């Protein structure tokens, strides 16, 4: 097993994450259509949270505004895939270059991501210069602006009314493929020279500057890449829903994705992937509970889970470590040692930091 880890080398983390996610995706349809839909939403959430991680996790600057890129991706993707006849009936005043555009789903994913990335680039020009806390809040302001534009640009978005007629091209397979591509893409970035410089600046901004890291530039790159990834996830989500409003890309999803990242752990890609998985399980259980308690349990439960992680395990359930063969092995060994005396009653799937390699 150790030898396998060595030969897989640096790529073992995304490969192991792929195995986990693929297994869930294969098993989900056995639980019926509802379970399959839950799996699709979970996979889209993974893409969103990994996108958020590629900025917030790697730079250490929390963002309250990244879901604006999700909305931009969703509306862009929808507007260029709704069939022409339906579109002219739905949005008669659409500018002609959009009114006559009809692209296939894969192209729409790229265009939606591209438009979101472009907006992220424009946003980054002033915003990336700000100090960390100011940047978090400035990005929140961007979210508010995006929401208001979507809510009031009636000729293009139908404003607060639902945009419908969007082709529902997102199958379980599509969601799985996108989530995996996003994971490999962001892992590649994390391990690139840009990602390393950005992580150095996260650990200590002054020391990073002292070794020549242009922190503003690295954060700008991260903002554009994360805008692309989240824009892509937005397109895919829109094509899952088929019908949506600006509220689908506002505060609820902002809180949800931040909670998922915090629960999983902001400092590793593994955390950004296991967060959405654990929250999917938690949400399922809480929704069943809601049939007894009435509505609200789901949100309260999620908020409490985030609070508990912040208080008892501030680096998240991943502890900031990546999933590797040796971390799995030490987990198994620890589990065996623990079982005879005390049954494993603690939080699920804790990944311990491997010290030996």
């Amino acid at each position: 097993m150790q030898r396998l880890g060595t030969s897989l080398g640096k790529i073992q983390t995304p490969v192991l994450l792929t195995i986990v996610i693929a297994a869930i995706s294969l098993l989900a349809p056995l639980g019926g259509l509802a379970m399959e839909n839950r799996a699709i939403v979970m996979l889209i959430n993974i893409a969103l949270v990994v996108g958020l991680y590629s900025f917030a996790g790697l730079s250490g600057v929390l963002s309250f505004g990244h879901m604006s890129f999700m909305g931009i991706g969703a509306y862009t993707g929808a507007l260029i895939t709704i069939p022409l006849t339906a579109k002219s009936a739905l949005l008669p005043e659409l500018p002609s270059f959009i009114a006559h555009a009809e692209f296939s789903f894969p192209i729409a994913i790229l265009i939606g991501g591209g438009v979101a990335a472009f907006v992220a680039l424009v946003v980054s020009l002033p915003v990336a210069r700000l100090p960390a806390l100011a940047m978090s809040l400035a990005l929140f302001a961007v979210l508010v602006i995006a929401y208001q534009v979507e809510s009031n640009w009636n000729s293009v978005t139908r404003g607060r009314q639902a945009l419908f007629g969007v082709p529902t091209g997102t199958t379980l397979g599509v969601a799985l493929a996108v989530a995996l591509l996003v994971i490999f893409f962001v892992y590649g970035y994390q391990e690139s020279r840009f990602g390393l410089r950005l992580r150095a600046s996260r650990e200590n901004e002054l020391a990073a500057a002292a070794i020549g890291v242009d922190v503003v530039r690295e954060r700008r790159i991260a903002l554009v890449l994360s805008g692309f990834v989240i824009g892509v996830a937005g397109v895919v989500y829109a094509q899952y829903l088929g019908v949506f409003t600006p509220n689908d890309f506002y505060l609820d999803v902002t809180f949800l994705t931040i909670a998922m990242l915090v629960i999983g752990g902001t400092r590793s890609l593994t955390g950004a992937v296991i967060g959405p998985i654990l929250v999917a399980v938690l949400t399922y259980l809480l929704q069943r509970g809601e049939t007894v308690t009435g509505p609200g349990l789901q949100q309260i439960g999620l908020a409490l889970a985030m609070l508990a992680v912040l208080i008892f395990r501030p680096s998240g359930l991943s502890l900031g470590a990546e999933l590797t063969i040796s971390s799995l092995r030490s987990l198994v060994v620890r589990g065996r040692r623990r079982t005879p005396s005390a049954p494993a009653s603690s939080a699920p799937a804790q990944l311990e930091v491997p010290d030996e390699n």
Partner: protein
Amino acid sequence: MGVERDPGSGPELVAAGVCVHFEGVKAVDGVDLTLRRGEVLGLVGPNGAGKTTLVNSLTGFETPTAGSVHLGDRDVTGMPAARLARLGVARTFQSGRLFDHLTVLENVEAAALTGHRTRRRAVVHATSVLEMLELSHIASRRARELSHGESRNVELGRLIATGPTFMLLDEPAAGLNEAESDQLTALIASLPERLDCGVLIIEHDMRVIMRLCHRIQVLDHGKTIALGTPEAIRADPVVSEAYLGSVERDAAS
């Protein structure tokens, strides 16, 4: 400072009349300083003399209120720290500032990226720096798991990996025991020749300073009160009044 220049030794790092004032406090008040390649310059003085503030203004972490900093012919006054580092002026900090959650190798690699465009080349360079400092055995440890002595060495390694022409070290031996300090001193002494660079060192331990430095500049209340060879400084009555005397008394008690 009418010392003759050695034309072969390349550009110098020169501060002229540098002042840094904070809301009426004159932390640095008109200091001239020249750092040459191939030398170790000691910067000493009592606490609050303005040593760290001067280093901050030489490395882009503080914009001087007045005065200028030149790197060779180039005016680098107020240039951002990251750009100065890429031009070869790099520093360490008084308090440890490693990248805690990165490995030792990644710490050094991030610095090696300053002169190497790809991660593959940066790894090779970082590995050789760790070998030179005899730190290869801790390459895969995370920085936060290191002992104090190891951290200080890794910080120096990170600095070296940027390929600096001028290195400014702010109390590199602070908190080290005598053996560790001696080892570090020997290493620092070898750097000007090995890397063809100039080293400025702030240090309170006069034993280290006297052993290491070609020249010593003494600051007090933001001004230069003496500049010369270790022997001259040791004999200077102004210096022993302001600084050395009190230190020796402290050490004796």
